């Protein structure tokens, strides 16, 4: 058994936290970009485009994230792509996030009165201009609280990438636990680190929600 001081454990966990943060950010940004594309399909006038996007969203919301990660990790090599845990983790979480974000923003678009579209059209704006100048800014603004709430969910979800071998916080903590046999301390610290990342965001989302309710 190797002797680890508390500082050794904390230092190693904090070093691994960088990867958790980086993965969360990459997946959030990627998810936002892909989610925008899904949103366009989801609110398009074409019925089949809407159905396709609904199916995409239902697929990701109706299956475990762990399965989605496994399918990425084992599926991409079948297409001839060499893949590392990091790539599979980013791609898997990106698609996962895109489905949820598209659905959140779609609820924002639906919440706007139809008069907003009519007003845009009467100003002579075409569809894309209407979206860019009138609809999307308002839809994003009223869905800010659930978007931040989803970011919290995404940060917690990065823990699953430890299972496909990505060296983030949880995988590092498993290794430390195997060496120190102090599960309460190790996993307690990991929980604390996650809490410190997520709790401020949860509070922020709550404040946004209150502010939106006050309007």
């Amino acid at each position, binding site marked *: 058994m190797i002797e680890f001081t508390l500082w050794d454990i904390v230092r190693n966990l904090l070093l691994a936290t960088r990867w958790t943060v980086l993965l969360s950010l990459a997946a959030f940004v990627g998810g936002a970009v892909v989610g925008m594309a899904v949103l366009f399909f989801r609110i398009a006038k074409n019925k089949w485009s809407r159905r396709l996007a609904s199916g995409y969203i239902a*697929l990701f919301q*109706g*299956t*475990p*994230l*762990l*399965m*989605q990660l*496994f*399918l990425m990790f*084992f*599926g991409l090599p*079948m297409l001839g792509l060499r893949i590392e845990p990091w790539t599979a983790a980013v791609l898997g979480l990106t698609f996962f996030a895109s489905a949820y974000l598209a659905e959140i923003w779609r609820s924002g678009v639906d919440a706007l009165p139809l008069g907003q579209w009519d007003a845009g059209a009467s100003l002579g704006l075409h569809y894309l201009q209407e979206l860019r100048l009138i609809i999307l800014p308002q839809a994003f603004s009223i869905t800010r609280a659930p978007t931040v709430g989803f970011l*919290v969910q995404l940060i*917690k*979800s*990065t*823990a*699953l990438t*430890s*299972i496909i071998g990505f060296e983030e916080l*949880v995988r590092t*903590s*498993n290794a430390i*636990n195997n060496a120190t*046999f*102090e*599960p*309460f301390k190790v*996993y*307690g610290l*990991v*929980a604390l680190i*996650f*809490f410190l990342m*997520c*709790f401020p965001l*949860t509070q922020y989302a709550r404040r946004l929600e209150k502010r939106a309710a006050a309007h």
Partner: protein
Amino acid sequence: MAFGWLPGALGDIAHGAATTILLIAVTTLAGTLLSILGAAGRRNGPVLLRRAIAWYVEVMRNTPFLVQLFFIFFGLPSLGVRLDPILAAMLAMTLNMAAYTIEIVGAGLDAVPLGQTEAALALGLRPRQVFIKIVLPQALKIIYPALTSQIVIMMLESAVVSQIAVRELTYEADMLQARTFRSFETYFVVTLVYLLMSMALRRLLVTGGRRALGAGVS
């Protein structure tokens, strides 16, 4: 892509799916019960209890389920409590789900008009009777859709308990792919099984709820 292994694997998949269903059934019952107690305690309990419940909810909601699972499964034995993997999984899932449903049930309790309680008290019912017979049924009806979503989310989350060797659906998939070397195909099939299960569970809960709680449940 090759699916020649599939017929021989159906038994294992069915067995795993049955365990997943068992897990979610136990979690739903225990989690709902716990969250009713929690939500009631958060409103009517002593100050210390209220504060403890509020912190419990925050801690569980802001940490990953996987970490909670490891904390319970690897941590409890060092306190001298050795849990079977499936019991540890049920415990972790119940505790996790309760943190979310305490908020949901609480919102339902708040949504029942105060006049209902006053009317029931005026009729001479005791406070406990008022809660169980008047307020709670109405609250459950209000929150039923949110509860349904949470149960489905929890079922999908349960895939993670394969990591402590509970022989549920994902664990069976792990074993199958190790045997067949058909990783993608195995997880593809099992993902479809999960998709069907989540759709069936949602439908079951909606129809069951409509029958038990009356019309208006969607």
